[in-house]
């Protein structure tokens, strides 16, 4: 085993430090390019187990990002589901993950993709805000605050 001069140890330490900084900086930058907006939860009638959550994810990065899960201290479990209507029959299909191509938006919206929020840990009513943490296949999780509100009736202009 050869002994390196002291200044070379320093050089290595600086390189490691720089690389470390670069990694952290890259992770922050990468997640900053994923933007979550319009997060809200449809208020449910009293005593109901399931609620629907909605939000928009904007992937401004140059690669696909994969949403793998969501958690919240206000719910026991959160799943991704899509409502599909075929021949007027509606069914929900669980999605293990959601892939969002580079430069595109993915919208969870009533009647289509939704966050199925299972078993509230406390009673939630319109006006409350709920923290949601979104987990991705790569990078740090992102936290967003979702407002509980009464869903609107869709009008002509949305069709």
């Amino acid at each position, binding site marked *: 085993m050869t002994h390196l001069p002291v200044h070379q140890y320093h050089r290595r330490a600086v390189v490691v430090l720089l690389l470390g900084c670069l990694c952290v900086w890259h992770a922050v930058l990468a997640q900053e390019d994923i933007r979550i907006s319009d997060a809200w939860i*449809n208020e*449910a*009638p*009293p*005593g*109901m*187990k*399931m*609620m*629907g959550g909605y939000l928009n994810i904007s992937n401004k990065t140059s690669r696909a990002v994969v949403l793998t899960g969501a958690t919240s201290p206000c719910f026991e479990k959160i799943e991704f*589901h899509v*409502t599909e*209507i075929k021949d*007027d*029959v*509606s*069914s*929900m299909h669980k999605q293990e993950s959601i892939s969002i191509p580079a430069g595109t938006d993915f919208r969870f919206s*009533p*009647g289509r993709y*939704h966050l*199925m*929020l*299972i078993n509230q840990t406390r009673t939630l009513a319109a006006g409350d805000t709920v923290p949601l943490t979104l987990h991705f296949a790569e990078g740090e999780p992102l936290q967003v605050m979702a407002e509980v509100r*009464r*869903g*609107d*009736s*869709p*009008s*002509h202009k*949305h*069709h």
Partner: protein
Amino acid sequence: MKKRLIFITLLVLGSIAAGVLLGLWSSRNEATRTPVHPDIEGLLWPSPRTLAPFTVTDHLGQPFGLEQMSGKWSLLFFGYTHCPDACPLTLTVLKDFYEKLAGENAAGDVQVIFVTVDPARDTPEQMANYVRYFNGKFIGLTGTVEQISTLAQQIGVLFYKADNNEDYAMAHSVAVYLISPAREWVGVFAPPHNAEDMLARFKAIRKFVDASKK
């Protein structure tokens, strides 16, 4: 020469008068003619199916059957209270529809009915909590699967358990079905729903069916 001019003038005036009278007569005839099938999307005419008797339980725990539908326009929607997306969405539209109609003082003979396709979890109390959230006048119906099927099958409503998880989901028809005061299935509103559109079509169907019964 002068006599001839007067004759021609009278002839022209006479023709115009005859034309006007003929027009008036034919338009009057049009108004009294029996209504033909109007172009209303979702209207089931000319031979609507008359519902057969059924018995289920309402959200107050009282029996509910055909008698409770007589003399009223009923809008039926089938779903379940554990549904986080499609059902609250449709009930929000129905709430909007009903409140708009009530605002026009035209909801006195209209009832909105939510029928569960998941009676194992949807007790009358659960249905009461659910329907009252949308509107205090909405009716919730539950019962045994067989009782609900007796009603559902008559209007082609499908429902089945979609998985075997503890928190299972139901697959179910999401159209809104319209039953006339004569207990005839006269209309169907297919998804996607919106209140203004449903209101316009409901009023057109009600007017047409009422006119046909005279």
